């Protein structure tokens, strides 16, 4: 089920849950609806493409609180926050906390469908890039110490000749290692290799630097 897409709905009002479910099913996605934020946390599958349609105002755990919990846990599911006119301030807060978007109640089917599609596309892209990064990470980890040495020098832009000098190796040996690195990393050009490794390390830095809110 590689192209499974799930729309999660969290709203305490059964009529709203039902209506949003109908719209989501109409665009051919799987729907999981919950009355409480806690139930969602138990039933959520991080590995599958999905988005969360969330009511900002609920009696027990509010939408904002659930969003905070998810942020703190590092869960990056796109959130479509539903807010009433009364909760504009909360909607602003939701956006500043990284919600995908918010819809002001009441909204129409077309608006909801389009928003869900966009959120799912974002989720899919995020999951793909995560998979890609995991792949590069695995390949990086498979490099031997000597290969890693060469890769680091490639990354800072050294020529084969400079590397040979730096590592006191023959030009031939450097070329040899270099082709092994390219093969293991699954790259056909140096440009691809550098951008792949760099994009991943910056992404990891970002995650590492993200404060635990």
């Amino acid at each position, binding site marked *: 089920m590689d192209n499974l897409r799930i729309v999660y709905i969290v709203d305490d009002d059964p009529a709203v849950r039902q*209506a949003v479910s109908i719209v989501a099913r109409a665009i051919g996605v799987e729907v999981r609806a919950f009355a409480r934020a806690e139930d969602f946390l138990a039933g959520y599958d991080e590995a599958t493409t999905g988005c969360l349609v969330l009511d900002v105002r609920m009696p027990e755990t509010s939408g904002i609180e659930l969003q905070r919990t998810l942020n703190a846990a590092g869960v990056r599911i796109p959130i479509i926050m*539903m807010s*009433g*006119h009364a*909760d*504009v301030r909360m909607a602003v807060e939701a956006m500043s906390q990284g919600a995908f978007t918010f819809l002001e*109640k*009441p909204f129409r*089917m077309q608006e909801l469908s389009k928003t869900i599609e966009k959120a799912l596309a974002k989720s899919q892209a995020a999951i793909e890039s995560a998979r890609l990064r995991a792949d590069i990470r695995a390949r990086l980890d498979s490099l031997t110490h000597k290969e890693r040495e060469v890769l680091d020098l490639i990354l800072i832009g050294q020529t084969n000749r400079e590397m040979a000098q730096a590592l006191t190796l023959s030009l031939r040996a450097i070329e040899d290692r270099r082709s092994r690195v390219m093969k293991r990393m699954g790259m056909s050009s140096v440009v691809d290799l550098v951008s792949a490794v760099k994009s991943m390390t910056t992404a990891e830095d970002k995650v590492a630097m993200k404060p635990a809110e």
Partner: protein
Amino acid sequence: MTKTKTSVKASEVDHAALASENRRLKSELTQLKAADQFVREREQVLQIILDSATDVIVTINEQSEIVHANAAAYQTFGYSAAELTGLPLTILMPEIAKERHHADISTFLRTGTQQRSWQGLRFNGLHRDGHEFPIEMSFGAMRRPDGTYRFTGIIRDITKLAEAEEIKRQQLGELAHRQRLLSVGEMASGLAHELNQPLLAICLQADAAAERLQRMLGANSRHTGPGVCETDEAATSKLQTSLSEIANQAERASRVIRSVRSLVRREEVPRARVSLAKIATDVLPICEHCCDQGGSQLVVDVSRSLPDVIAEETLIGQVIANLVQNAVTAMKDIPQSNRRVAISADEIGNNQIQVSVSDAGEGLSAEAIDHLFESFYTTRSDGLGLGLAICRSIIETHGGHIRAENVPDGGAVFSFTLPVSGTV
């Protein structure tokens, strides 16, 4: 007679009797002197009292003519004590008070009893320059040896007191007015939320039904002949029009709610940097009034050294006043000596200041704690269930939180947080 008898028998020269008589007379003289001294001293004390009193003290006869007035009369009414002597007391009163004064005196003289208390009578006094001002007057009656009466009156200028009372009354009136406005706003807000939910469901369901109809039509037109399809198409088109109209009207209803709501409620409250000590000081008279009415003690501990918050101060003051009022109400069934409301403010880290209002009442039920801050929830028969909902919306608008809990040794505490200035 005794003295005559003594002189007749003088020839007998009873030395002993004479000496005894002398002693008696001397002692009588000493007593008289002491009595005289006593009276003089009393008079002096009285004079000092009269001279130093800031209240006007007058003595009048049965015709209400002033027999004596003290120096304070000049300060208060613009007449010197000498000028007032012989004038009717009613010269110091506007018309309406004159009649009542005469009635009081004549009733007393006729019946020997007071028809109303003569202590702390409040009415307007009349200054020499013609302006009226509020006074408080107490009267006493003294029966003289000849059977006539004298009356003493103590008159106090209560202009300042009356002004303070007026200010307090206005503040309370304003509070009530704001409360009403906020109540309407909160009600509209609660309604908007409650109605938007079903309106959203109506919009989405109608749209989804219209779309399904469209798809069914598409399927039919592929499977059946064009003749059948045409009727279907006409019917479907009508149904779709109806469905889209249902969704449109639901949207319209929501717009109506929204416009009512923005009429009664200011969306943006102007906020400024302000210290909690100032907010607390400003709202203190109202809190004191609440506590006085409920026979409760009030303890305030809000340090001036706390960092400022960003807030609309009257709204935060309103929240505090509301919580104090609730605290007082919560203690109406406990002994008066135990009734105590405490307001405190502390820095709790995370750039937050927490303000707490605690009472010594019977605490909150678990159910109440869960629903206290919801619109229309109340445990009181006379409550609208909006006060705490308003508090919550004010505090949340300020980026804070409000909660209620029970204190282990009895009573409840309501706390709210506000972000420290510079962090919002």
